[in-house]
C-alpha cells in the first residue's frame, strides 16, 4: 500500500506515478541511502533502526553474499571472503592500491582492475560494490513502497574516470538507474547550503574511512559552483586505525600476528580510536591465537601524537586547493566538516587552527553527503522546481593526449566546469603518414608514464601529405557525470573517428555485459513476473471499476459511439490480461483510461450536482 507524502504546490504526481528518488553515499567504510519525503531529506534506516550500512560484503560458500553488519562481524574469522573498503579498489590495478599487501585478500591481478578470489568465485570490486548497492536499493524500496525511479550516487571529488565508470557500472549491476554521479563534497554543500541558505565561499573538509577530499565551493544566489578540488584517495580513518594497530603490535611485543589476529587487532584499534573522541584513554584487551594476552592502555595524547602526521598530510592538498582557486584564507567564509573521521578532536582542532576559525558541524558528518545527494535526486526526477538551484561541478584531474617523446599535452585542465568540451589541433610528423595513434591520459604530470592511461585509438585514412600539413582536431567532451568521450577529425579530408572512453580498468564491455547478463537473467525474470502480476491486478481493477461506472451512468452520460469505444478498449484489455505481456497490458489499460477520461469527468460533475441538490454521496452508485 502506497502511503502518501506532501508534494510541492502543483507537483502532485498521478497515482502510481510517484517519482521515487534516492541519494546514495557509497562510502569506503559505511554506505547510506536517503530520500526527500514531504519536502525534507532524511536518511533511511533498516529494520533495526540503523542508518549506516557497513560497506562490507562476505561471500559464502552457497554463493549468497552477506552484506553490512553481519559481514563485518565475520571479518575476523573469515578474512579471505569478507571484503571491506572495496571502494579503494574501484577502477584500480594492484600496483595502484597502496597497502594492498597488508590486506588479507587473495588478489588476482587482472589488467586494469584487481579481482579478489572468494568462496563464491573471483569477484571484481564492481560486483562487490553492487552487492552493497542492492541492499540499499531494497531498503529504499521497502521504505518508499515502490520501485525507484533513480538514484544519485556520490563519489569522492578526486575519483578519476576509471573510478567513476566503475561506480556507475556497479549501480547498473545493482539495477539502479543512475541519475547522476555527484562529488561528495558538493553533496555536502547542497545539504548545508539549502538548510542554512548561506552565501559565500566555503571549504569542505571531508575525512572519511578511506578517502580525503578538500573542495572549495562558491554559493551565490542559490547556485553552487565548485571552484577547486583536491585530496588524497588513499587517506582516511583506516590509516588512523593502522597507526594504533602498529602501536599495539609494538607495545604488546606481538612477534607474529596471524591473519585472524591482525583483523581482531585492527577492529580493536578502530574501537580505541572512536573511544578517544570522547574519552582521554582507551583500554585495549585481546587474546591472540597463540594464547598471548594483551592488555594495553592508550592515552589520547599518545594517539594524537602518533597520528599528527596523518592530519598534516591533509593540509598539503588543502593548501593546493586554495592556491588553485586563487584564494587566501581570508576569502573563506566557512569550513564544513564531513566524514566520520572529522569527529576526532585533534582533526577538528587542526582544521580550526589552519583556517583560524571554528568549522561548521551542525549537520551529522556521517549523513550530510547522503542528504545532499537525496536533495539532488529529488530535483533531477522533477519533484522540485528546477529553477530553484543549479549545480556546477568541475573536472578533478586534467585530461590530455600523449605527444612526441612521451609528453602530455593537456586538453581539458583540472577544475574546468562540467559539462565541458575542448578541442586541440595536432598534425602528422612524417611525410605520407596516413594514420595517427591517439592516447588519452588523465593526470597532472608531464610524462605519460606518470599519468593514468584512459584509452588508445587510431585515426586512419588520412590522405598522404607532407609532414605537418594534416590538421587533426581532437575534441574532448566530458558530461555532467565526469565521463569522457573523445573524437578526432582530420580537417582537410574529413576523415574522423570517435570513442567513448571506457576507462581501461579491465572490465571490458563484454565483461560488464556478461556480469549484467548473469545477474539479470534472474533479476529480469523476477521483475517480469512481478510486473505481470502488478499489471494484471491493476488491469482487472480497472475493468471492474469501468464496468461498475458503465452500469451506473453509462446510458445517461455517454453517446453510443463513446460507449462502443469504451467497450472496445475493455475487450482489448480483457484479452491481454490472459496473456503474459505486461507491457501490452499496461498499454491497453492506459488507453482504456484515456477512453474513459471524459466519462469520469462527467460523472464527477454529475455527482457534485446530485450532492448539491441534497442527496447523500453514498447513494449515488447503487
Amino acid at each position: 500500500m502506497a502511503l502518501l507524502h506532501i508534494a510541492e504546490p502543483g507537483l502532485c504526481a498521478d497515482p502510481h506515478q510517484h517519482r521515487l528518488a534516492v541519494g546514495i553515499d557509497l562510502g569506503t567504510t559505511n554506505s547510506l541511502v536517503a530520500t526527500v519525503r514531504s519536502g525534507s531529506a532524511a536518511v533511511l534506516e533498516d529494520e533495526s533502526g540503523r542508518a549506516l550500512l557497513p560497506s562490507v560484503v562476505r561471500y559464502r560458500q552457497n554463493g549468497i553474499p552477506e552484506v553490512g553488519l553481519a559481514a563485518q562481524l565475520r571479518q575476523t574469522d573469515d578474512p579471505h571472503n569478507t571484503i571491506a573498503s572495496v571502494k579503494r579498489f574501484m577502477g584500480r590495478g594492484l600496483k595502484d592500491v597502496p597497502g594492498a599487501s597488508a590486506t588479507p585478500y587473495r588478489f588476482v591481478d587482472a589488467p586494469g582492475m584487481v579481482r579478489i578470489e572468494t568462496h563464491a568465485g573471483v569477484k571484481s570490486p564492481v560486483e562487490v560494490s553492487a552487492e552493497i548497492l542492492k541492499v540499499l536499493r531494497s531498503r529504499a524500496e521497502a521504505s518508499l513502497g515502490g520501485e525507484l525511479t533513480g538514484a544519485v550516487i556520490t563519489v569522492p571529488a578526486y575519483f578519476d574516470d576509471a573510478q567513476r565508470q566503475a561506480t556507475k557500472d556497479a549501480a547498473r549491476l545493482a539495477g539502479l538507474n543512475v541519475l547522476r554521479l555527484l562529488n561528495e563534497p558538493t553533496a555536502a554543500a547542497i545539504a548545508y547550503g539549502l538548510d542554512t541558505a548561506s552565501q559565500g565561499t566555503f571549504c569542505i573538509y571531508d575525512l572519511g574511512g578511506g578517502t580525503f577530499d578538500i573542495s572549495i565551493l562558491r554559493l551565490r544566489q542559490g547556485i553552487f559552483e565548485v571552484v577547486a578540488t583536491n585530496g588524497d584517495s588513499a587517506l582516511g580513518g583506516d590509516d588512523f586505525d593502522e597507526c594504533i594497530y602498529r602501536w599495539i603490535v609494538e607495545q604488546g611485543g606481538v612477534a607474529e600476528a596471524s591473519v585472524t589476529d591482525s583483523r581482531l587487532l585492527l577492529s580493536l584499534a578502530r574501537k580505541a580510536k572512536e573511544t578517544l573522541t570522547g574519552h582521554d584513554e582507551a583500554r585495549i584487551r585481546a587474546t591472540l591465537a597463540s594464547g598471548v594476552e594483551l592488555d594495553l592502555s592508550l592515552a589520547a595524547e599518545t594517539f594524537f601524537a602518533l597520528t599528527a602526521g596523518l592530519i598534516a598530510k591533509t593540509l598539503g592538498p588543502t593548501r593546493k586547493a586554495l592556491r588553485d582557486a586563487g584564494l587566501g584564507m581570508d576569502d573563506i567564509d566557512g569550513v564544513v566538516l564531513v566524514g566520520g573521521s572529522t569527529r576526532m578532536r585533534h582533526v577538528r582542532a587542526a582544521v580550526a587552527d589552519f583556517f583560524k576559525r571554528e568549522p561548521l558541524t551542525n549537520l551529522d558528518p556521517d549523513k550530510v553527503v547522503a542528504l545532499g545527494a537525496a536533495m539532488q535526486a529529488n530535483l533531477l526526477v522533477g519533484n522540485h522546481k528546477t529553477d530553484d538551484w543549479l549545480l556546477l561541478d568541475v573536472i578533478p584531474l586534467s585530461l590530455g593526449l600523449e605527444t612526441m617523446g612521451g609528453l602530455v599535452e593537456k586538453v581539458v585542465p583540472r577544475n574546468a566546469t562540467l559539462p565541458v568540451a575542448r578541442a586541440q589541433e595536432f598534425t602528422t610528423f612524417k611525410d605520407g603518414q596516413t594514420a595517427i595513434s591517439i592516447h588519452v591520459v588523465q593526470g597532472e604530470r608531464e610524462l605519460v608514464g606518470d599519468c593514468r592511461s584512459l584509452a588508445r585509438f587510431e585515426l586512419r585514412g588520412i590522405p598522404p601529405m607532407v609532414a605537418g600539413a594534416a590538421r587533426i582536431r581532437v575534441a574532448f567532451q566530458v558530461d555532467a557525470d565526469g565521463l569522457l568521450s573523445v573524437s578526432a577529425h582530420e580537417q582537410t579530408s574529413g576523415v574522423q573517428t570517435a570513442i567513448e572512453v571506457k576507462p581501461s580498468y579491465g572490465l571490458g564491455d563484454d565483461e560488464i555485459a556478461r556480469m549484467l547478463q548473469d545477474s539479470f537473467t534472474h533479476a529480469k525474470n523476477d521483475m517480469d513476473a512481478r510486473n505481470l502480476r502488478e499489471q494484471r491486478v491493476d488491469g482487472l481493477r480497472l475493468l471492474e471499476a469501468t464496468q461498475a461506472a458503465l452500469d451506473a451512468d453509462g446510458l445517461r452520460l455517454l453517446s453510443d459511439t463513446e460507449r462502443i469505444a469504451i467497450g472496445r478498449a475493455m475487450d482489448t484489455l480483457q484479452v491481454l490480461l490472459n496473456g503474459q505481456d505486461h507491457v501490452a497490458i499496461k498499454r491497453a489499460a492506459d488507453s482504456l483510461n484515456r477512453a474513459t477520461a471524459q466519462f469520469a469527468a462527467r460523472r464527477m460533475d454529475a455527482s457534485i450536482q446530485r450532492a448539491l441538490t441534497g442527496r447523500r454521496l453514498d447513494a449515488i452508485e447503487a
Partner: protein
Amino acid sequence: MAITLSERAANRVQKFLDQRGKGVGLRLGVRTSGCSGMAYTLEFVDETLPDDIAFVSYGVTVLIDPKSLTFLEGTELDFVREGLNEGFKFNNPNVKNSCGCGESFNV
C-alpha cells in the same frame, strides 16, 4: 462535517512545514484519473485560492476546494508506519471501494 488531521498527522505536517521554511498549510484534494477512479492529492500551500474552504486541525490549516470537499467530507488524514514505509493515509468514509493502493478510490 469537516476535514480533520489526526494528532500524529498534524505534528508531522507542522514539522515538514517548519523544515520547508515557508507555506501556509496543507492542501487536500481529489482529481479524476480515468475510471480507475479518483485520486487523492496532498500538497503544501503557498497561496490560498478564493474558493478554498479552510479547516484548522491541531493548529494546522487544511485547505480544500469545494469540488474535492464533496468527496472528502468527514475524511481524517492520518500518518502511519507500515514496516519500513511511512506516510500519510486518507480515512475517507465516502469510499466504496479503493484499489488497495491507497491512492485512488471510487465513491
